């Protein structure tokens, strides 16, 4: 565990709730990135960040200082995001990540820079990807994102989501199958 995180956790547990600010400011960007990938929009991602730290605060005394605070908060964030995905209607997941209306124009490729054909292809891939993500269950989406973007091992994902390794694998397999169905026609050489 990061020594400074350990010190801050001890301070908060000793009653200095303002010290929690250090942990929020140190880890909220990482939590946001995960939350955004899982929820697909900024507003929901920020809600997940807030809920993640509120849950973490309540459970701080259960946190074992041998572990990494970053890993621990990451796990809580994955669960918070999954709860949100379970609660909202599926149509909310449709927005393709990185599209102008969700992520800001600065995050989409510049048409002038890459050429209109490539831009159109990229936009189509993102649209298909958005639809493919909408087909994933919250569990499949979370497991896939944790593996693909966050580089978490199957064991870590299983621990985070309360799944056995075999169930974790199958969630990822199903997610990849759905991605392949949606994207292969576009990426076939």
């Amino acid at each position, binding site marked *: 565990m990061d020594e400074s995180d350990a010190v801050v956790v001890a301070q908060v547990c000793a009653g200095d709730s303002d010290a*929690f600010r250090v942990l929020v*400011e140190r880890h909220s960007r990482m939590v946001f990135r995960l939350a955004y990938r899982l929820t697909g929009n900024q507003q929901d991602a*920020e809600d997940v960040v*807030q809920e993640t*730290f509120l849950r973490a605060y309540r459970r701080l005394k259960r946190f074992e200082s041998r572990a990494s605070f970053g890993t621990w908060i990451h796990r809580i964030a994955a669960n918070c995001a999954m709860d949100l995905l379970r609660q909202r209607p599926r149509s909310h997941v449709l927005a393709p990540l990185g599209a102008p209306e969700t992520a800001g124009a600065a995050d989409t490729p510049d048409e002038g820079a890459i050429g209109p054909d490539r831009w159109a292809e*990229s936009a189509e891939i993102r649209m298909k990807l958005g639809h493919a993500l909408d087909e994933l269950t919250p569990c499949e989406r979370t497991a896939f994102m944790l593996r*693909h973007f966050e580089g978490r091992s199957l064991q870590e994902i299983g621990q985070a989501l309360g799944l056995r390794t075999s169930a974790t694998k199958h969630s990822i397999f199903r997610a990849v199958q759905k991605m392949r169905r949606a994207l292969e026609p576009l*990426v076939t050489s």
Partner: protein
Amino acid sequence: MTGRQKAMSHPTGDDLVLYHYGEAGDAERIASHLATCGACRASYQQLQRTLTAVETLVVPEPDEGFESRMWQRVKRGLALRTRHGWLALFRPARLAFAGAVAVLVIAAFLAGRNWPRPATPTQAVARGGEPGGARVLLVAVVDHLERSQRALTELVNAEPAASMDISAEQGWVRDLVPANRLYRQTASEVGEMGLASLLDDLERVLVEIAHSPSTLSSDEFDSIRQRIESQGIIFKVRVLGSDVRERQQAAALGPARRGA
């Protein structure tokens, strides 16, 4: 199967996914197979292209004031939860809570004597306000639904461990059971059948948790969690809580509108 036969068998699509993510137990065998089998190599390259396309997902970088803004949100949330937190809800406030329940019972009793029972809740809302007994019930039950939602959410989101101690959560749930029973009965009596039905479902879950052993194995805990999640009880409680709050607000606005 001999080593030679094993080296010649084609990996499945799932094997290739594991191989791609560095999770295949037999990575060397798959690698040597891909080096010699054109069909499998093409399949693997196609998988790689698909997963590369997923990289087009872009996460916007938060603005410069993001951390500070998030801290302000968390701080507000902490203040709110301190006021409505577990300790405040379940320990020092027990007397106040018991008082509120007593008020509810008396009010419901008086309401039953003085107000005609509505034909349906819909008709009552259509008239622009809640009948007296239902209105008192709604005021009291919102808090109960919020507490129940928090208790179940806390339990469902507990960190998995080989041995789970849920005695704290059980204590909260045990406090909720008698109140839930009272609200359910009152809801039936004042014709709030939707609410009564939800409270009935909620009561089953609460009773099950209250009667579980206080220390659970990981599998036992998973079983409880899956039962809670499969019934969607947390979501139902949250939706109904929002619905009740909206009705309260509509009822509060009703007299003002009529007076205008």
